[in-house]
Structures are given as structure tokens and as C-alpha cells.
């Protein structure tokens, strides 16, 4: 019950996982054919931003939980620990997106594929943080 609010807030992250997974799946398929296009990256990035990042921002905007308390439906709040962990994971996703962009811009498709694999790993990390906190992804 205490995690109910967190579940509500981060359901969109669950959806983000699905949406991003779908996009990742698409791009992975493309990568297997040794091509990662700018549109592939743009759609993946917008999907991630519109789901995971937007929800993370919404979560951060909740009031701070009082000491030694967590989420309740009656008291929507965020904890510093979880916010920091999710933001750190998000930062790795951001770096991976930028590296992939750099490789595409420079026309290095092999590098883009490698960067894309790193991006998949980074997204898996943030998904694990979410699932470790009792939120289905």
C-alpha cells in the first residue's frame, strides 16, 4: 500500500520501458543489419524523454518525504535516495544517447552500433532500479 503512490507516479516509467524497449528492439534489429539511422535515434530519444525523463521530473517535483517515512497515498512525496539513483542512471542514458548521436553525426555506423549497445545497457540499469523498488517494468 505504501508503494501505491510510487506505482502510480512511475507507471509511466513502466510504459517508458515498454515504449523504449519497443524502440530499442526496432533499432537493435536495424543495428543487426549494421545501420543505425538518425530517425531511429530521434524516435528512441523522444520516447525516452516523453516517458522516463518526464516522469522522473514529475517525481522530483513531489514534496520531500519526512524523515523515516516513505510513500503513502495520502502523502505523495519523493525520497532523496531513490531520486539520486534514478537521476544517476538517467545520466548514463543521456551520455549513451549523446555518444550514439556523435557516432551517427560522424558517419561511423560501427561506432553507432557499439554506442547503441551501451545505451541498451544504460536503460536496463534504470529499469532495474525501478523494479528493485517494487515497481513493475
Amino acid at each position, binding site marked *: 500500500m505504501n508503494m501505491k*503512490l510510487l506505482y*502510480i*507516479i512511475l507507471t*509511466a516509467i513502466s510504459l517508458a520501458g515498454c*515504449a523504449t524497449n519497443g*524502440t530499442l528492439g526496432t533499432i537493435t534489429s536495424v543495428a543487426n543489419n549494421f545501420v543505425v539511422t*538518425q*530517425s531511429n535515434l*530521434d*524516435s528512441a*530519444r*523522444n*520516447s525516452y*524523454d*516523453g*516517458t522516463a*525523463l*518526464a*516522469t*522522473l*521530473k*514529475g517525481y*522530483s*517535483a*513531489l514534496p*520531500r*518525504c519526512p*524523515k*523515516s517515512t516513505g510513500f503513502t*497515498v*495520502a502523502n*505523495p512525496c*519523493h*525520497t*532523496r*535516495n531513490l*531520486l*539520486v539513483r534514478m*537521476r544517476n542512471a*538517467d*545520466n548514463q542514458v*543521456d551520455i549513451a544517447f549523446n555518444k550514439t548521436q556523435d557516432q551517427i553525426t560522424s558517419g561511423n555506423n560501427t561506432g553507432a552500433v557499439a554506442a547503441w549497445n551501451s545505451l541498451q545497457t544504460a536503460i536496463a540499469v534504470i529499469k532495474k532500479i525501478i523494479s528493485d523498488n517494487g515497481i513493475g517494468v
Partner: protein
Amino acid sequence: MDIATILADVQLAVKLGKMAYDIGVDSAPFMLDAYNILFKGKVLTADERAAMVAKEQSMRASIDAQIAEDEKTED
């Protein structure tokens, strides 16, 4: 169920609705672009891509500001 409980539930529903709305406002432009790229063949211009990155930076700055504020006290 007494009036106070009903009012508290309504207040909570409004609060949750506001949260959902705020997330939606941030989310919608990105999701619309993602949809248009994936299903309508839209190609982002350099300006649109720069705007996307700028919006990302703005959102992350907001999150980082909250984290900095949180650093002042323990959970």
C-alpha cells in the same frame, strides 16, 4: 463514509490528477514527435533536434536543482 473522509479522498484525487497532468504536459511533445517519426515518417530538423536537447537539459536541471535542495537534509 463520513464527509471528512470523502473530502480527503477528493482532495487526494485532485492532487494525483494534478501530478498526472504535470507529467503529461512534459511528456506530450516528446511522445508526439516520437509517434510522428515512427509512424508518419517525420524527419527532425536540426532546430527541432536542438530544441529537444534543450528541453532535456531544462528538465534535468530541474531535477538536479531538487537533488541539490535535498542534499541539505537526510531522508
